[in-house]
């Protein structure tokens, strides 16, 4: 890791490469109902990270033998466009995308009332248009909004953000460079109302104390993202009320 010229990621004043402090989020933009044909959709932009999510369903499960008698199945595909990364990503699903599809699906399963729709399927598609760090957490944030936008009953929303260790400091919302050259990256997905973790991964080295700090910082970031999520949903209904 040391042999490639490693940029200094935090300067003497505690500023990061993009001018942020350690506990700052990148500029956040969240919108819902951004795609016409899907039953629900959302767009999340966090700095240069840009992610769409769309939901189809509940609908008939295909193939039929996969359907469950007591609840819906939730399908999830996390996918990145070929041009979303510095080097072109090969077409089709990489092993990373398969893993992330699984952890995101499992996070969503925790909050959707699947038992309301036996024998049916709900499809969630996440498309990363540009990847600059934190794509799985932005994807999960968008997917939970798309589900809400589709009117699918949920216990609560999920908001997610990555924290990590960069130049020895615990920072919020890692960019791609910070993820690449930093010491650790920890994506966290939280259901804010019940205050429970629904997604948690760590890649890299942290002491127990740093982990504790990281988790606290993630909660702080997640509160902000959660508010932006609620705001985006509210905005949609306000505008449809006005039209009526």
């Amino acid at each position: 890791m040391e042999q490639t010229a490693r940029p200094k990621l935090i300067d003497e004043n505690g500023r990061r490469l993009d001018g942020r402090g350690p506990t700052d989020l990148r500029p956040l933009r969240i919108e819902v109902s951004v795609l016409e044909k899907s039953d629900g959709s959302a767009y999340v932009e966090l700095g240069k990270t840009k992610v769409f999510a769309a939901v189809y369903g509940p609908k008939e499960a295909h193939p039929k033998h996969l359907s469950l008698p007591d609840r819906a199945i939730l399908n999830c595909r996390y996918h990145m466009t070929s041009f979303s990364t510095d080097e072109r990503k090969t077409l089709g699903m990489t092993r990373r995308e398969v893993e992330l599809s699984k952890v995101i699906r499992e996070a969503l399963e925790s909050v959707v009332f699947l038992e309301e729709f036996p024998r049916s399927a709900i499809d969630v598609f996440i498309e990363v248009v540009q990847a600059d760090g934190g794509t799985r957490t932005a994807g999960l944030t968008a997917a939970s909004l798309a589900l809400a936008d589709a009117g699918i009953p949920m216990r609560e929303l999920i908001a997610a953000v990555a924290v990590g260790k960069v130049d020895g400091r615990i920072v919020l919302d890692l960019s791609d460079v910070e993820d690449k050259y930093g010491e650790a990256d920890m994506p966290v997905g939280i259901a804010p109302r019940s205050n429970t973790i629904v997604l948690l991964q760590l890649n890299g080295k942290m002491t127990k104390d740093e982990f504790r700090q990281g988790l606290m910082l993630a909660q702080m970031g997640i509160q902000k993202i959660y508010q932006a999520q609620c705001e985006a949903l509210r905005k949609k209904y306000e505008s449809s009320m006005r039209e009526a």
Partner: protein
Amino acid sequence: MSFIPLKERSFAVRIMNDKIYKLLQQGKRIDERSPYEFRKITIQTNVVEKANGSALVSMGSTRILTGIKVELGTPYSDRPNEGVFSVNAELLPLASKSFEPGPPDERGIELARVVDRCVREGKAIDLEKLCIVPGKMVYILYIDIYVLDYDGNYFDPSVMSAMAALATCTLPRYSAAGERLEGEYMRVPIRDVPLSATIGIIKDKVLVDPCSAEEGSLDTSIVIGMDSASNVVAIHKNSPGHIPLHLMESIIDIAEEQIGKMRALFREVVGVG
């Protein structure tokens, strides 16, 4: 696309969930273990002569076979002075009725990537010592994990078997010019032995090393990987469900304690760690 595996979440599961929780409240488990007691671990190394390194690790009746094959190749262009390793995992159909033949599904990929994360982020291998000619010729280690018998928790014994196979893996030696030094061999340079502990959660109670009867009825579970200095090097929540935030700290503490015990065992059998 990932989909929900066909596991029943029927009344039977709910009854089992309730039973496990009630036992945990009394400090007990369905298989008579205490909540923080992993199953009996056995480690055998060099079980496959044709592999450069191999290990068979069992945790209760979950058995994992790892073999390592070494090839020569070119390094990654951004890491010209480092050897390369890759981890693969297969959930063999002979190990469980829930595993099917064919290329690794999402569970196999997940297992491989969690083991990879522990080994890589735990800085288990001194990759620079696996470089023969910088930029041109390095050792490539293929670490292949096979689940032979599955009775819950394939993560912890997989990490352990990968580390046991690595620690006993021999490589043919080459000169700095890339010439084979006939008859000379070296060990894979091990820097650290990261291990993992899988923690199951039901409401406000936790248990370690879930067996398959427990695994299907937990609220959720999480894998924690740590190095020998008790740094957290990998975390992977591996099933749906909620973990109350206030439990996280004690989960890490319990993982640390478990990994410490596993490490003592590993050191005794393999000689490093």
